[in-house]
């Protein structure tokens, strides 16, 4: 095996030398500009591989913070009558302790935790951590480019993200607390500083943070699209691209078209908050006082928010889908089933994502006839989604499947996507939504389909491309423990929530003391909370594995350990700036030539044989 691999290596280098093209990249001296010292190498790096790692590690940090927050509010939901005084050393004033020593999590704190958990996970972890990491890492490597179109804008993209994070992190320590009106920031809670303690400085910083975040997404997205469309290597036509790149392309386009709309909405919100306009406010009494604002419409904000908000869930899930398609094909040793159908369904999902936003507003008072149109488009999204699911299953079918951590997470993704996707069909119907809206059914649905599923896609990607990032492997045993713990644990958390939701238990509530009808769900909530703690602990295994393996993991000895056909595995084990030490490889075939005839796989850089040429001619 090892002997065989070494032989393959030499062939790779020979193929690049023979068929690649010389772009004179290494004639210039780049070393000083890109990685001369600690600061330009590790901090203000302009190398896409380093920026990818920055996004990933920052994402891990935020996932840790956001995950911890969920444990705090799960404690309140699972054990509302228990003494929480032991939390006081950590959270201080936010734990109200009576004279008798009995502590409770304060309501403001609970709401702030719920809000921050949503904001952090949706934007910082699953948008920046997922798309930022893998778009940066894979786009240049898989399309045969030396780097992004603009390494400088790429660096700015990360640092705007960092700044957005710093501002939000700072807001957690305000004496009035972080923003607590929900991650969607609906007015009037978000528009009136006097509405709650978190609506003051907390909301101002939230707005600033998210605006900085949008700048980061736009700078990144402009770069991704430009790079994919302009800088592909010789022979790499669009129809030869790996599905990861297609997914990143459509994701970036969706982001570029939807995030600016959010900025418009935020700007009007800013004017309502700080200047006294009435875009979203009308005839409001607050604290017994009548406000001057007349003529605004809070529904207007919902339209603007969800015009981003819905495409945003596809911004989260599409990169995961791309990663899963790639990982499943490689570890099943089969070409991806229905490549073109996969591409077209990515495009269809991207297109439809803009036509469904009002399904978040069925009960907000929109015209029921308009709701019908949105029901229709929402249910149509099930078609391309189902095409993808069938294609993944067909890819697995009859393959020589490797059950390693990467592929297990990819298979787990398919499981999660099916479970969570099916409940979407319930919620997409405006009639059923009257019962289910704002209940734990919704919480269960979106956590499974875009929270857990996107995490699974991300984990599949991390385990699969870890060797490319650090030149070492992550520990397989710990990876499998991580997988099974997460798969079982995530279902244990979210499955019961469907029952809560069907019974009508509303989400976001601090306590159900006054609802006799929900009293019997106390044990179920305890169960969910215990499961959430266990799943969090299992994630720590991943974090330990990740950081331990950077220095002590099993070293990667061959360039292409998985036997993959794509270009990133033709680079040296530790690629320097410019990715390929000599020429850039040219591409002669599509990216999924697995189990071709007698051969296990054929790399994209290998020219067509005479036989293949003849086949193509016909």
């Amino acid at each position, binding site marked *: 095996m090892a002997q065989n691999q070494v032989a393959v290596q030499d062939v790779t280098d020979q193929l690049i030398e023979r068929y690649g093209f010389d772009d004179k990249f290494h004639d*210039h001296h780049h070393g000083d500009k890109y990685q001369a010292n600690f600061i330009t190498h590790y901090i203000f790096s302009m190398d896409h591989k380093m920026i990818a790692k920055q996004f990933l590690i920052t994402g891990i940090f935020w996932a840790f913070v956001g995950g911890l927050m969920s444990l705090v509010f799960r404690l309140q939901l699972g054990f509302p009558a228990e003494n929480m005084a032991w939390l006081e050393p950590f959270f201080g004033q936010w734990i109200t302790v009576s004279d008798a020593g009995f502590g409770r999590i304060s309501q403001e704190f609970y709401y702030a935790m719920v809000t921050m958990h949503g904001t952090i996970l949706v934007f910082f972890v699953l948008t920046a951590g997922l798309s930022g990491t893998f778009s940066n890492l894979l786009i240049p490597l898989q399309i045969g480019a030396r780097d992004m179109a603009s390494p400088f804008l790429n660096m700015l993209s990360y640092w705007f993200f960092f700044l957005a994070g710093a501002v939000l992190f700072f807001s957690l320590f305000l004496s009035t607390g972080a923003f607590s009106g929900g991650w969607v920031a609906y007015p009037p809670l978000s528009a009136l500083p006097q509405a709650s303690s978190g609506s003051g400085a907390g909301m101002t910083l939230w707005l600033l943070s998210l605006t900085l975040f949008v700048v980061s997404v736009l700078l990144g997205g402009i770069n991704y699209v430009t790079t994919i469309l302009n800088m592909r290597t010789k022979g790499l036509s669009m129809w030869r691209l790996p599905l990861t790149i297609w997914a990143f392309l459509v994701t970036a386009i969706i982001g570029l078209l*939807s995030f600016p709309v959010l900025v*418009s909405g935020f700007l009007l919100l800013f004017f309502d908050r700080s200047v006294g306009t*009435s875009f979203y406010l009308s005839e409001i009494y607050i604290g017994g006082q009548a406000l001057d604002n007349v003529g605004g*419409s809070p529904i207007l904000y919902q*339209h603007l928010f969800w015009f981003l908000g819905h495409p945003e869930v596809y911004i989260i899930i599409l990169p995961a889908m791309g990663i899963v398609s790639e990982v499943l094909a490689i570890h099943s040793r089969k070409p991806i089933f229905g490549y073109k159908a996969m591409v077209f369904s990515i495009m269809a999902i991207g297109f439809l994502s803009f036509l469904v936003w009002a399904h978040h507003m069925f009960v907000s008072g929109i015209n029921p006839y308009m709701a019908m149109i949105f029901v229709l488009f929402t249910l149509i999204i099930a078609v391309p989604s189902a095409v993808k699911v069938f294609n993944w299953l067909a890819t697995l079918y009859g393959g020589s499947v490797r059950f390693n951590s990467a592929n297990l997470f990819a298979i787990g993704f398919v499981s999660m996507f099916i479970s969570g996707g099916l409940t979407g069909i319930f919620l997409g119907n405006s009639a059923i939504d009257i019962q289910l809206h704002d209940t734990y059914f919704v919480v269960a649905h979106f956590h499974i389909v875009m929270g857990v599923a996107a995490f699974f896609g991300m984990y599949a990607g991390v385990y699969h491309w870890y060797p490319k990032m650090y030149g070492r492997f992550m520990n397989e045993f710990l990876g499998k423990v991580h997988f099974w713990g997460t798969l079982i644990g995530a279902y244990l958390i979210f499955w019961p929530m469907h029952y809560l939701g069907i019974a009508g238990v509303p989400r976001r509530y601090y306590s159900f003391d006054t609802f006799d009808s929900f009293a019997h769900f106390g044990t179920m909530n305890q169960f969910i909370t215990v499961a959430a703690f266990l799943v969090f602990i299992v994630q720590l295994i991943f974090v330990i594995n990740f950081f331990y393996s950077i220095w002590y993991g099993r070293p990667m000895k061959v360039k292409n350990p998985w036997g993959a056909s794509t270009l990133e595995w033709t680079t040296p084990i530790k690629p320097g700036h410019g990715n390929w030490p000599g020429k850039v490889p040219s591409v002669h075939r599509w990216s999924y030539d697995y189990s071709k005839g007698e051969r296990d796989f054929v790399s994209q850089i290998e020219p067509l044989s005479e036989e293949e040429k003849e086949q193509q001619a016909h």
Partner: protein
Amino acid sequence: MRKASGALKNTGLEPALFAMWIGIGSIVMMFAAFTSAYVVRQAQGNWLEFRLPEWFFLSTVVILLSSLTMHYSYKQFRKGNTTVYRSLYLATFLLGLLFVITQYLGWNAMQSGGVELTGNPSGSFVYVISGVHVLHVLGGMAALAVGVAKSWLLPHRITKKRITRFKMMAHYWHFVDVLWIYLLLFFMFQ
């Protein structure tokens, strides 16, 4: 914008120019959001009708003129007429400044006509939307200021890099011009 040297250009476009057009796409979406918010809100009634200030029409003439000077400045740059190109480039900047001033005078006229920023949303929308447009013009003028300064300070050389930069500047400038025409027509007829 730095780019990896010797990069392939699959679309035949300069990546920097291409990237700028994608950025413009984002700006278009932002204004599409503003104007559709305007339409949605207008449909709900309680909407103050008022005449746009006449300054806005003057500023339209000014920005159209500035597009013309930009266009001819680029042509003269390519032809090598140093003085003409420099002067027209400078004129574009000054016309841009005049546009911002006339917009400001327009807001003042709206204010004294009783249409306040914090009054009926129909007025607030005009202030905010035209204000955001002016911010985009000012952004363009910041880049233009650098370009004008360089045009007078550096020797006139027609390099590939400078052509791309000039094109980016000109395209963006024409874009904010067209964007303003769209907004004006929208305010007038919507």
